[in-house]
């Protein structure tokens, strides 16, 4: 007999405290013991999570108006430039922007973490002055409680999958994935594998615009497809993309976040980035979704890519599974390469557990997407062209 559940039915069970909620790790164990049909019949929600470096993150802030007021043009937060080209006292602080006084040490990500921690942030802004906004400069301090709005808006988070980085050259290279040792000295991977949100819903049936999620310790939403959302890449026999593919744009209230789940980071000789904790509850709507959420590390392949080639298209040297990566070493053309994780599996598990508690207690209900994410679409490169080429089509 086929099983099916609606969002309404699942939410009713959550409200009455009867929903069966498991993490994506737990449901794999259950499926191994009792099979996928048992999961489909007995499990309502599966919580997925990831805690990784997500450069494409930032926050919108509204400072309120000073007296006399200023139309902030150039804005700095703890000496980190923020974008001020939106109205008078709105700003966007990007995670990877670096401090003008302490580059490679402090940046937008640190401003975000410090705001969440409740620390005072030095705000400095300049302007040209107008009749309605006569002030031309301001220097003051703000905390998150003093801001009107502070919401994280991350254009690209929760990559569905990500390549494994290696280095075939003879020198150490420093990348956004960390330090890559020469002559295939290590292999760095960054997905949470079987626990990762979009790997548990590979065709975006339940994760779409409007999905309610865990973002940085607070409730948030999927706002849109993420930038560089690229669902049309090659997939394996389980429908899992074998390299970077789907992405999500996420939004959530920074004021309600917890710095346990949002941490600023510095990648040596690369720059600043932000570790973001994302958790997504997935409804087990039917057998198909049950099968999806029971995906295991050994079912998920990813590509091994040579980051020593400084081109847009880097050579793919092989394909491995997350089970291989989690074993501590991979084999590549007869070489044994130690593997190094970049995202934190222990933190991801903590988030999946926390989110499980939220759903079990009724603190978070499931939201059906109001719009599906694109399932077919390729990412375009940036070509260097002259105007005539465009005008001539």
């Amino acid at each position: 007999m086929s099983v099916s559940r609606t969002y309404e039915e699942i939410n009713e069970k959550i409200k009455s405290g009867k929903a069966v909620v498991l993490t994506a790790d737990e449901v794999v164990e259950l499926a191994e013991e009792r099979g996928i049909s048992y999961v489909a019949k007995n499990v309502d929600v599966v919580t997925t999570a990831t805690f990784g470096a997500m450069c494409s993150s930032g926050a919108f802030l509204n400072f309120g108006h000073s007296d006399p007021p200023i139309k902030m043009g150039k804005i700095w937060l703890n000496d980190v430039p923020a974008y001020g080209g939106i109205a008078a006292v709105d700003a966007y602080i990007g995670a990877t922007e670096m401090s003008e006084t302490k580059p490679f040490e402090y940046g937008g990500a640190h401003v975000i973490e410090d705001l969440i921690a409740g620390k005072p942030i030095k705000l400095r802004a300049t302007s040209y002055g107008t009749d309605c906004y006569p002030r031309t400069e301001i220097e003051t301090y703000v905390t998150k409680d003093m801001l009107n709005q502070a919401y994280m808006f991350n254009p690209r988070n929760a990559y569905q999958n990500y390549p494994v980085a290696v280095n075939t050259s003879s020198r150490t290279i420093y990348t956004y994935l960390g330090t890559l040792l020469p002559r295939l000295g290590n292999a760095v991977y960054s997905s949470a594998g079987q626990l990762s949100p979009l790997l548990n819903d590979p065709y975006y049936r339940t994760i779409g615009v409007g999905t309610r999620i865990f973002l940085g310790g607070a409730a948030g939403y999927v706002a849109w497809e993420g930038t560089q959302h690229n669902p049309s890449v090659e997939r394996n026999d389980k429908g899992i993309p074998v390299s970077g593919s789907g992405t999500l744009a996420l939004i959530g209230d920074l004021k309600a976040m917890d710095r346990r789940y949002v941490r600023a980071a510095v990648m040596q000789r690369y720059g600043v980035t932000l570790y973001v904790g994302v958790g997504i509850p997935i409804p087990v709507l039917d057998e198909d979704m049950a099968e999806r959420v029971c995906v295991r590390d050994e079912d998920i392949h990813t590509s091994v890519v040579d980051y020593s080639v400084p081109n847009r298209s880097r050579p793919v040297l092989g394909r491995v599974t997350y089970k291989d990566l989690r074993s501590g070493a991979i084999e590549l053309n007869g070489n044994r390469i130690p593997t190094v994780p970049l995202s934190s599996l222990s933190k991801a598990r903590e988030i999946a557990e926390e989110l499980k508690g939220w759903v079990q207690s009724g603190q978070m209900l499931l939201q059906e997407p109001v719009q599906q994410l694109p399932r077919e679409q390729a990412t375009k490169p940036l070509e260097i062209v002259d105007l005539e080429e465009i005008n001539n089509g």
Partner: protein
Amino acid sequence: MARCRVVLTFPPDKVRHPVAYHLVKDYGLKINILRARVDLNEEGKLLIEIENHDNASIQNGLQYARDLGVTVELVDRELQWDEDECIHCGSCTAVCRSEALSIGAPDWRLKLDKQKCTACGLCVGACPVKVIRIDF
């Protein structure tokens, strides 16, 4: 059991001298070479861990090295890892050649084995959230 870590710095004219051999043979010291940089006709450096049941033998051995013109610096650098602030990503293990830092199943939390650590300091730069320091 007495134990210490020292950096021996050899002037260019002494790099050919088998100091480690004499520390073992003449002073009965157990030596573990943790790092070495030795090039002919250039200054050489050796980071070694020395063990003996009696501290006096260690001191005598080190005095022998000093008398040869080798500079002896006691290393009391030790890695300081703030476990509570650590996000347990595992990035630092990429550069830890001594395998003092490790991460893996079942809990995927970072582990530090101070016995294996050579205090090389590479992890300090590799740690994204700056929770590893080396104190002097």
